[in-house]
């Protein structure tokens, strides 16, 4: 066999690894119980070599998990060195500093053996239904209050599930049945991956995958280096202010590109919060490197070689490098804002490439009712519900931002009918929010408006934790900011963007989600595109005239004469 064809064989096996981790993820999604896993895809799956290097990750899944897992595997290897592992073992943790950043995420690692020899590790992560404590409430003062903390430990010993441990887990969960199902789903997912791998090794008569791993990582490293070499060398700084929880948070980043690596350092960022919005550094690394990769090398398959060239650092004690035992349950509030921050740096390094800011941290609607939430002795069905929804994405240099679509999170919206079937909630409206996209040559994606009440004559609570209420998504290159988010009661009273609040019986909550920022001067937008937006109700006539200087006639067409007049008139340029 020629060496050249051997190279092609390596590529084929690489494709196979990508395919088998996809099988692993799909298995998890199919058999999981937690609604956010099965309906929204809040999970991840990957294969690692025995040195703990990520070789391939599933397409299905969410970036915060996968890039965190890529680091976490080394901690598993230090607790369970390869010579201590036995076929049929499964290990797991929900340690936020070793896993994926909060107690809800169970990370499960399974060694794969072939002919008695350890050949690879499969890992997957899923957001489980409930793990006790205060759960999603960011008011916990430390991680101990947030739920049960499981250090890295065995879950299955040589094929025997640790029943006592399982009892302990279930005794600590408000939803023990779902939790048990999720744990089994995680085990089954890794098993599926391992089975496929050993089959592939049989087919290609491999005893180890070390040579394949070397091929994957060498090829990826070369491509990543080439991608970085195309970028200018230098140092750029960018900072943004976001809502935070109680007080605004300053996020500062310094981007250094030296031709070999991309380094982002967070010195200058606000200190750790007393609320549970802090990020362990692993999670910070995950979302920062995700944003960088989207911009610099979107088509490269993600693995250790690609991630290793993106270096992320932060002094201990800032909100993006929170030390144990800081509260971290809502770390996505900060972590999911980091790609926009990285984009801000890149806009300075390579102008005309980064999208405008978007909603960032997803506007997940968490509702509940029952004792401890809406008060003891109240009428009404107790429930807890998490509903993934999102505002708009920032405008892109090729097109308008996507409406009501999460970025950087990759989760799917949960069906209203499913939520209503599981809870007493009624959604009275879920519609695009007009004029919420920042004006520009390319418009920011629209947010959405959701109006929700209860079918019962009973109160319910919202566990609010939203960004972009005080500080909206910024436009770039002269584009306008997106609309800020708002919350209110249908009767008019304001609702705070953060904190648990009770919606009284008979009242409805109105949530208007933020729009994405625009790109480029709005007065440069094609008038036909503005007319299309007005016809569709994405933009009002008034906004067309005020922001785009486009006059739409009664028949919906652009009034060319008045538009020309408006666009040439002395600009009273609003400061952006």
């Amino acid at each position, binding site marked *: 066999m020629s060496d050249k064809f051997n190279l092609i064989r390596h590529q084929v096996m690489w494709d196979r690894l990508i395919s088998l981790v996809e099988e692993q993820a799909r298995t998890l999604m*199919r058999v999981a119980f937690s609604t956010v896993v099965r309906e929204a895809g809040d999970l991840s799956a990957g294969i690692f070599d025995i040195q703990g290097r990520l070789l391939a990750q599933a397409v299905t899944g969410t970036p915060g998990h996968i890039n965190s897992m890529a680091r976490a595997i080394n901690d598993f290897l230090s607790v369970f060195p390869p010579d201590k592992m036995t076929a049929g073992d499964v290990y797991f943790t929900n340690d936020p500093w070793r896993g994926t950043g909060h107690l809800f995420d169970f990370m499960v690692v399974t060694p794969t053996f072939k002919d008695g020899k350890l050949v690879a590790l499969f890992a997957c992560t899923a957001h489980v239904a409930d793990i006790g404590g205060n759960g999603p409430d960011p008011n916990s003062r430390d991680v101990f209050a947030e739920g049960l903390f499981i250090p890295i430990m065995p879950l299955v010993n040589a094929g025997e599930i640790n029943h006592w441990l399982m009892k302990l887990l279930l005794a600590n969960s408000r939803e023990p049945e779902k939790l048990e199902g999720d744990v089994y789903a995680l085990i089954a997912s890794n098993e599926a991956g391992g089975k496929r791998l050993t089959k592939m090794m049989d087919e290609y008569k491999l005893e180890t995958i070390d040579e394949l791993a070397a091929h994957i990582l060498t090829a990826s490293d070369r491509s990543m280096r080439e991608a970085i070499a195309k970028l200018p060398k230098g140092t750029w700084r960018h900072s943004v202010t976001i809502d935070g929880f109680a007080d605004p948070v300053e996020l500062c980043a310094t981007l250094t590109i030296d031709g070999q690596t991309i380094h982002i350092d967070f010195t200058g960022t606000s200190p750790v919060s007393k609320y549970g919005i802090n990020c362990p550094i692993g999670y910070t690394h995950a979302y920062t490197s995700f944003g960088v990769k989207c911009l610099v090398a979107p088509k490269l398959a993600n693995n250790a070689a690609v991630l290793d060239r993106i270096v992320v650092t932060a002094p201990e004690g800032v909100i993006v490098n929170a030390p144990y035992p800081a509260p971290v349950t809502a770390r996505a509030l900060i972590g999911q804002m980091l790609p926009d921050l990285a984009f801000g740096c890149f806009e300075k390094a390579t102008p005309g490439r980064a999208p405008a800011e978007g909603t960032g941290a997803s506007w997940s609607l968490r509702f509940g009712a029952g004792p401890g939430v809406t008060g003891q002795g109240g009428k009404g069905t107790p429930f807890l519900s998490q509903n993934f929804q999102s505002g708009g994405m920032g405008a892109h240099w090729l097109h308008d931002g996507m409406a009501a679509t999460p970025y950087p999170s990759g989760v799917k919206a949960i069906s209203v*009918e499913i939520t209503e079937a599981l809870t007493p909630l009624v959604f009275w409206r879920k519609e695009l929010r007009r004029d919420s996209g920042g004006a520009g040559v390319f418009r920011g994606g629209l947010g959405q408006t959701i109006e929700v009440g209860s079918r019962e004559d009973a109160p319910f609570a919202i566990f609010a934790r939203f960004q972009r209420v005080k500080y909206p998504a910024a436009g770039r290159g002269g584009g306008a900011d997106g609309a800020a988010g708002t919350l209110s009661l249908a009767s008019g009273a304001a609702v705070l963007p953060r904190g648990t609040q009770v919606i009284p019986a008979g009242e409805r909550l109105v949530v208007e989600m933020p729009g994405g920022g625009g790109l480029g001067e709005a007065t440069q937008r094609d008038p036909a595109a503005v007319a299309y937006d007005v016809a569709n109700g994405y933009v009002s006539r008034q906004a067309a005239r005020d922001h785009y200087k486009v006059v739409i006639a009664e028949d919906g067409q652009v009034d060319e004469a008045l538009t020309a007049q408006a666009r040439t008139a002395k600009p009273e340029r609003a400061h952006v």
Partner: protein
Amino acid sequence: MNQSGGAFYRLAVDIGGTFTDVVLETPDGWASGKVLTTGKAPEEGVVAGLQFVLDKAGVTADKLDFIIHGTTLATNAIIERRGARTALITTHGFRDTLEFAFGQRFDQYDLELERPEPLIARPLRFEARERVAADGSALVALDEFGVRELAHKLRELDIESVAVCFMHSYRNGAHERRVREILNEEAPGLFVSLSHEVCPEIREYERTSTTVANAYVQPLMATYLGKLDKCLRDLGARSPLLMIMSSGSLTSIETAQRFPIRLVESGPAGGAILARQIAMELGASRAVALDMGGTTAKIILLTDFEPRHARSMEVARAYRFLPGSGLPLRIPVIEMIEIGAGGGSIAHVDELGRIAVGPESSGSSPGPACYGLGGSRPTVTDSDLLQGKLDPDAFAGGTMRLDTQAARAAVEAHVGAPIGVGWADAAAGVCEIVDENMANATRVHAADAGEELESRMLIATGGAGPLHAARIAEKLGMGTVVIPKAAGVGSAFGFLKAPIAYEAVHSQIAHLAKFDADAVNKGFANLRTEAEKVVRLASGDRLLRERRFADMRYRGQGHELAVELPARVYENADGAALTEIFEAQYQKSYGRRIPNLTVEALTWTLVLSAQDDESVANASTPEPAPSVAPIARTTQVFDAEVGDFVTASVIARDALPPGARFDGPALVVEDQTTIWAPSSFEGRISTGGHVILQRKSNA
């Protein structure tokens, strides 16, 4: 039994994008014809083809026992956005459901992606004041006056078809039905599709998408089917016209006119039925059917001789064939996956220096570089040619000479040079990658289905399928590959073999721990009545076979497993038996049962079919006498498992009688396609005339 006293005259018509195929089966054999599809009035093409075939066989239309028809007209109307001017009426506050779609990016890292435009733009999406809760109770009564006003507006806007999708209508469809009554009064002639009839299932986006697609193609399809029926009557046909659905079952023309969306992908369903027929003929209860054409490959799993069934699919994937970039449809379908891998798929080298193949295709024009029609980018067909698998002088029965130089130049420039290998290795790489893509898609599909692939038979069709099937089988650990005879007649031939069957479905959640046998028995009785009405149209008084299925899951899970139930009257105590059936299946699919959980059933399906005369082959079927296949010449072909060129025999298929045997490496050449048997395979011709490749026992 039938009009001619025992023997059947069956006619099948398949309308594809380019050709309309007609196949007639008579007691003496079969005849076929191919005419150009007549885009504006497809019934004209059908009549021309039908007349041609009837004349050829000397049969008159009144002799026909039944006519089976499948068509891609609905699919193409959606893909090409050529449907009716359609409006949508939703519950107040939900007109954007269609536009929000899944609220997800279908590619994690790609900032450039855009969601395809919905079939109905926002100005034609209207709202009605009404609201039904999840338990089916009405929270807000229907604002009838508002609907009347809307009806006038729809007339002013020249709307031809309307989709009505209200929240939770799958629980209570009264408001949707009332809207139809009002529209019928105020705007007669308007086509109306109600979501609880088209797709009585929870999840508003999928239901809306399905109903909108139904409304979008309904005027076109209903009109066409009406005209076709009349044309057939005018020709003297007295037999019923039966439509083949995406599920592979048949339905009446009336049902097809109401729910034309159920006809999408009926062509590929015909292919699946053909595969089923061959699996039965060869006694292979578990198989994989691979149809690799010019642009895409379709893959179907068959278990217990049956193709897998599903209740959702996606049409018109707009963005690199990515799942999530098309329109979801929730209808009964033969489950298949389609990937951008065909003879015309274009190869290039990606940013990682890796060979990538497809989904972009050269189509038939300019086509692969070797066609010499101006194509300069390398395709799978170019690589097949360079590997020696295609004879440049005998392609398409010698009607087209392939240009090896052009293929070599294209592969060298776009694949070889960028990764630093010669044309031979580059061509080998392209084929390996496209084969791997198909194998991987099959594996992921099997994982989704909870099925194993080993020990299945691979049934390969399509222009490129027989060239690539053996390598794919090697990759999937499958030992046997079958290339059916007359694969070129395609789907229409499959239609002829379509079981006279109907699949009836209804959703009714049942907790097996508190099993209410009466309710379930009643449900199945209704389904039986519904199914029998259709099946009897074509079955005469033949015996009917009833099969039952339920989609079950552990309470709290999001995906169901379809399990077969005994077809009998149930008692309350049967809850435990049904639970056991589910858990056994679950364990088989996912390795373990989950303790302490209750099991629920969501959807119940009844399949009623006329007993076929065909039967599964058994061991006593005599093997034809073996003979040695004559070898015309030898040629050099690249064998991927060997990793080098090998000397292969070239054999003419039409010279092979049943029983003929040959040894790989070999190429078996016929007009429409070429079969590649690598070194690790040996081949023979079955009693039925199919080519069977078997992995050598020592390979």
